[in-house]
C-alpha cells in the first residue's frame, strides 16, 4: 500500500501530478492531507490548470495570453483556470494550444474515430481509410516499427491532400 507522503499513516488515495516550469512533481496524499493542502475532490484535477505548464511549454505564454474565441469571447486563460470551454467554436479558436492537451488526455490522439451523426451521412471511404491508417500508424510507432510508420505517414499525407 502506498502511504500518504504528508502524515505517513493513511493510505494515499489522492495522486496529484503537477508540472511546474517543465518539471514534473508527483504527490501522493490521503484524503485528509489532500484537503488540507487544498486538493479537494473537485479541485484535484482542474483540467486546464494542471496542464498549464505543459501548454505554455508547447505554445508560448505570450501567444496564449492573447488567444480569444471570436464567437463566445472566452480567453484561453479563462479556460485554463476553469477547465471548461465556452462554445464549440473554441476547439478551432484554441486549436494550437488545445491539441497537445487533448492528445495528452487521450493517449496521444486527437482524431475521432467513433460514431458520426446520421445527418452527416455515412463516412466517406476516404475518411474511413484515414481512420484506419491513423490507427495503424499509432500501432506501428508503439511497436517501434519505424519504416512501416514512415510509409503509413506518407499514405496519410497523400490522402489528406486529396481530401
Amino acid at each position, binding site marked *: *500500500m502506498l502511504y500518504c507522503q504528508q502524515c505517513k499513516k493513511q493510505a494515499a*488515495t489522492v495522486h496529484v501530478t503537477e508540472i511546474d516550469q517543465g518539471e514534473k512533481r508527483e504527490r501522493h496524499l490521503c*484524503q485528509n492531507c489532500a484537503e488540507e493542502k487544498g486538493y479537494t*475532490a*473537485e479541485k484535484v484535477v482542474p*483540467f486546464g490548470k494542471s496542464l498549464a505548464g505543459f501548454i505554455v511549454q508547447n505554445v508560448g505564454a505570450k501567444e496564449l495570453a492573447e488567444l480569444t474565441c471570436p*464567437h*463566445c469571447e*472566452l480567453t484561453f486563460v479563462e479556460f485554463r483556470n*476553469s*477547465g*471548461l*470551454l*465556452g*462554445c*464549440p467554436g473554441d*476547439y*478551432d479558436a484554441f486549436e494550437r494550444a*488545445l491539441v497537445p*492537451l*487533448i492528445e495528452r*488526455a*487521450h*493517449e*496521444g*490522439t*486527437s*482524431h*475521432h*474515430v*467513433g*460514431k*458520426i*451523426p*446520421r*445527418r*452527416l451521412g455515412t463516412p466517406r471511404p476516404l*475518411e474511413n481509410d484515414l481512420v484506419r491508417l491513423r490507427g495503424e500508424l*499509432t500501432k506501428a510507432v508503439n511497436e517501434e516499427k519505424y519504416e512501416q510508420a514512415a510509409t503509413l505517414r506518407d499514405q496519410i499525407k497523400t490522402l489528406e491532400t486529396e481530401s
Partner: protein
Amino acid sequence: MIDDLIQKPAEWLRGEGPMSDIVISSRIRLARNVAGFPFLSRATDEQRCELTSILRSNIDGAATGGQWTYLDIEKLDELDRQILVERHLVSRNHAESKGSRGASVSKNERVSVMVNEEDHLRIQVLRSGLQLREIWEEINHIDDKLEDRIDFAFHPRYGYLTACPTNVGTGIRVSVMLHLPGLKLTGEIEKVFRAAKDMRLAVRGFFGEGTEATGDFFQISNQTTLGRTEEEIIDGFSRQVIPRIIEYENIERRKLLEGRVLALDDKIWRSYGVLKHCRTISSDETMLHLSHLRMGVNMGRIKILDLATVNELFLLTQPAHLQKFFGSRLNGEQRSEARADCIRRRLTES
C-alpha cells in the same frame, strides 16, 4: 414521481443480470451539446432556459421503452434532489448546481437524460449486472432518435464537442460498479488498482465522481474518449477488464473458502449480528457490514437472506431515503438511529 420512486428498489439494484454476484451495475453515459449554442459556462440565463425548453420537448419525442417523466430539478426541494443522487439518476453536481436544469427519467429508472448538466445533455442508461452490450444498443438508439430531432455540435476531427476536452470525441463514459470483498480481504485489491491505472481507467467509490474508493465497492470507468470507437471502448470492458477482475475475485473467494472458512463465516455472521441488533449505526459502518452480508449470500454462507433484500438496504439506509421514509428532517445522530431501525426491521421481516 419521487414518492413513487422510493416505494420500490431501483432496478439497477435488483441483483439480476449476468455476473451480478460481483458486478452490481453497468452504466454508459453520452455527453452531447446542441449546435449553435454556447456551452453552459458561457450561456446566459435566457439561453439556459431556451435550451431546457428545446431539449425537454425533443426528449419526450425520443422516449423509448415506456414513459419517461421530466423532473424540473431547479424546482425540486433539496431532499428530493438528494433522493435522485442516491438512486444514481442524476449526478451530485447536477443536484447541487444552479439555474434552469432537469432530468427525464424512465419509469424503470434505467434511463436518465440530464438537461443542462456540465454539457447540454448527458444521456445515461444503467442496468443491473454486466450488460454493457445491451446498454450500448439502448443508448445508441436513444441518441439516434435525439439526433433525428436535434443537431449536436460535431467536428470532423474531434467528434462530438463537449465543454471539457476530457470528454470530447465519443463523449462516452462506461462505468462498472464492482463488489470485491474477496480481493479486499486478502489484500490483493492494490494489484487491481495498479492494473486499472496502467490501462488508463479511473477507480472511484460507490457514488462515482468525487467519492473515494473505500469499502469493498469500486466503480471502474474509462478516461479516454477519443481515438477509439464506442464499441472498442465497451469491448475492452466487457471482454478484457471486467472478466479478468471477476476471475481474480473468484480466485480470492475460493482461497477464503478453502483455507479461512471459519474466519470468513465469523466475519459474515458478526456483521449479521451487528445489523440485526444495532440501535444506532453510521453509514460507513452500514456499508461495511452490508458488504459482508452480500458476500455471505453470494458465497452461499448465509441462506436466510436473498440478494435483493441486501441490495435494497444499500439504498434505504442512505440519508435522503431515510428522511423520506421517516417523513421528517433528521440530524446525523437521528439518522444513525433511524438507519438502525430500518435495518433491524428489514432483517426481522425477511
